[in-house]
């Protein structure tokens, strides 16, 4: 027992800490030698201090604590993500259950899927006229595809046994959908939801940079223009940590659901 807790501590505590320290060391070395424009770790910390130590402070429209900016960004992501799920899940269900539909729409989905958020945003601006709904549109358009494709895969992977049960019990369409097809496809769907959330969070930065909306991405771009490079690094770290936290959170929810349906 004793040995295994030590091992755990080394694997999940000591080694990651060493890795992080190593990267910070390389970063310091690089800023001191080959990349003089790169702020050093120490300087980054000093300049970022007020934003990190008072994370919810609001000093002005474009001068707010980092978690306050994060909160704005998360709000936008939530809107776009919910729309992506509401559109993507039914689309995936139909795509998975109808061969006709799949043949008709699979090519167009494959074409739209790799389009960058930078390309969707101007179209959103044209369509909605205002930056806020254009950003939501962009997030939804970019993040719905993993949900669509994984839901469709989930429906296609439903074991034949369950399909036979639906047939011999003569289940109605809605009963079959909610009692059999969706529960059977749920593990796949959750994988899709998790990947979609990751993309939604990726897209927010681009959307805010282009629209100048207050948020992590907007702050990053503004500080670049203001030549405060330390804050670019602060934003990058924040985006990374929040993205990681979101992914972990979804994994926990996913595991819950899998345990409940298995």
């Amino acid at each position, binding site marked *: 027992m004793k040995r295994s807790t030590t091992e755990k501590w080394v694997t999940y505590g000591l080694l990651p800490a060493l890795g992080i320290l190593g990267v910070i060391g390389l970063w310091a070395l690089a800023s001191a030698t080959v990349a003089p424009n790169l702020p050093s770790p120490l300087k980054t910390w000093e300049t970022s201090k007020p934003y990190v130590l008072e994370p919810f402070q609001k000093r002005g429209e474009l001068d707010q604590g980092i978690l306050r900016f994060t909160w704005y960004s998360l709000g936008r992501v939530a809107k776009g993500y919910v729309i992506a799920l509401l559109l993507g899940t039914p689309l995936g269900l139909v795509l998975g259950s109808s061969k006709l539909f799949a043949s008709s729409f699979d090519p167009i989905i494959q074409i739209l899927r790799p389009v960058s958020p930078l390309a969707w945003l101007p179209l959103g601006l044209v369509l909605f006229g205002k930056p806020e709904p254009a950003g939501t549109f962009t997030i939804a358009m970019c993040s719905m595809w993993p949900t669509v494709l994984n839901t469709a895969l989930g429906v296609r992977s439903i074991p034949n046994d*369950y399909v*036979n049960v639906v047939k011999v019990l*003569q289940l109605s369409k809605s*009963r079959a959908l909610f*009692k059999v097809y969706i529960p059977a496809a749920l593990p796949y769907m959750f994988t899709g939801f998790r990947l979609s959330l990751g993309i939604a969070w990726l897209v927010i930065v681009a959307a805010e940079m282009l629209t100048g909306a207050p948020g992590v991405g907007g702050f990053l771009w503004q500080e670049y223009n203001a030549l405060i490079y330390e804050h670019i690094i602060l934003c990058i770290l924040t985006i990374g940590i929040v993205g990681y936290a979101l992914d972990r959170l979804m994994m926990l929810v996913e595991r819950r659901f899998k345990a409940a349906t298995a």
Partner: protein
Amino acid sequence: MSFVELSGVSKSYGSGARGTEVLRDVNLTVERGEFVAVVGFSGAGKTTLLSMIAGLIAPDKGAISVAGKPVTGPGTDRGVVFQNYSLLPWLTARENVALGVGQAFPKATPEERADRVTRYLTLVGLAQAGGKRPSELSGGMRQRVAVARALAMDPEVLLLDEPLGALDALTRASLQNEIARIWQADRKTVLLITNDVEEAILLADRIIPLSHGPAATLGPAFAVDLERPRERRDLSRDPRFKAIRAELVAWLLASGKQRKPVREVVESIPAPRAVEASA
């Protein structure tokens, strides 16, 4: 007209030179209230036969009717129990049984449906286990739930596709007794598909062997004129039991070889001795 009737039914998978004919010219009748068993080798096409009666697959040739109506698809008049249970793992035993009841009795009140579910869970001896999920139940218990699910829909015919094939020998024996008991209480028309000759003799009124595939077909019916309830212990010493078993096994083995006229092959095999050794 018989209650269940198959005439000239054939089925192939694939087409042309690469296709295989699974069943050729199958004729079968089951009377109302009768318990009929079809016995055959693994892979002979037993499940195909049952799936066609269930309406899950359509025959290439021939006609199938149940209660005078031609079979065009699945229906609540036929209850099916699959070999691999096919319970939905995210529903409790109770919910699995209720799934079919809700569909088969759309006009019943929720209380009536709940009563029905309870009644059939009790019939299969699982009144206490209704709240458990399939993963918490043993193989034998799962198959009981599947039987309850099929019976609770009050089908005209119960189709059992090797229902005990995945169980260990002891559980299998106890469930055979259980099925015999339920049938005595319920007197449904039953068609049992199995690869176990003794199981068929223990349960059925009439046994029909399915020849070795490809292009399998049904042999002559063997009537089982043993009194019920049949006790496994007494049965193994009963000369009638031994005779039926020997004849059936001989017919099946003969069908596995070239299709010689049956009687000739039966005489050429020292049947009883070989059977005793393998039993």
